[in-house]
């Protein structure tokens, strides 16, 4: 079956949906617990989980620029819409979350694709997709610390 280049956005919707569900249920059952905010590092983490899943499901597939841009746009919709539906936006306007989420997912998607194209993947390197995501997450953490 031909790999759908927009699977990443579908996986991101599932990952962000599960995270928002967790925040929603956690917030309802333990209202005084300090839950993680939907900030840039969390957005990056969720994006990289979706990209890692796609890395295993569609190993070896290459993405075109239009597909990367479409994924970023759909990622922005996921980050703007789903936290709002779950009541987990924390007072941040949906369009702000959408813009930030689209930028984060688009950038992560571009860098992750570039990384996977340059390192050995496939059955002989089963940890490559997860390892690339971990490196990008650590780099993103450093960058957000500088910001």
């Amino acid at each position, binding site marked *: 079956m031909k790999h*759908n*280049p*927009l*699977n990443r*956005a*579908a*996986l991101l*919707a*599932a990952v*962000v*949906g599960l995270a*928002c*569900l967790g925040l*929603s*249920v956690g*917030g*309802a*059952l*333990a*209202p*005084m617990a300090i839950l993680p905010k939907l900030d840039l590092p969390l957005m990056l983490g969720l994006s990289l989980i979706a990209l890692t899943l796609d890395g295993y499901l569609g190993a070896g597939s290459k993405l*075109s620029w*239009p*597909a990367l841009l*479409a994924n970023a746009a*759909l990622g922005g*919709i*996921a980050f703007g*819409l*789903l936290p709002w*539906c*779950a*009541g987990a936006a924390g007072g941040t306007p949906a369009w702000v979350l959408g813009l930030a989420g689209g930028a984060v997912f688009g950038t992560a998607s571009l860098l992750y694709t570039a990384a996977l194209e340059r390192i050995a993947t496939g059955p002989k390197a089963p940890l490559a997709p997860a390892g690339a995501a971990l490196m990008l997450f650590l780099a993103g953490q450093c960058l957000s610390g500088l910001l």
Partner: protein
Amino acid sequence: MNAKNLIAPIAALAIAAAVLFGASSALSGTAQSREEAARNEIMGYMLPGRPASFTEEPYDGEDESIRRVFKAEDGYVLELETAGYAGPMMLWVGVTNEGRVSGLTVRDHGETFGLGRGAQTDVPFLIQFIGTSGEAAVGENIDALTGATVTSKAVARAVNSAAAFVTGADVSSGATEWEG
């Protein structure tokens, strides 16, 4: 890439949105009751006699930092929002009917890790405010958090506002206002 490729992500978005909206609606009642119970429990520690219940009172005064007012038999717990170094800080301050601060907790903030974040956890800093009644002044009777003078003044400003709500005093001073 063609239009058919859009079906999977849009379907995933629609399903996730529907599930989240449904779950959020179903949990809203539980969330509200649990939040009220947990809030009352925490606020109970902030006033003498550990009152079990609070009544929210409307506030239409001039102090823009006061968000909500909860009254118990022996005093008030006020929810205040004040400008910290890195964004707004939300605090709860317990004040007795005599105007003395009896409890303080920082509920939410975005202060710098290792510096202003101590406003939430630094007990020696926080305990200085207990027993004050509007005269908390950083550099005078309050020692600031190391490297976090702006945050310390923000906390002092909120605590004094809470005390002033009960005493009616004007608490604005150079010791609590950031002029940087």
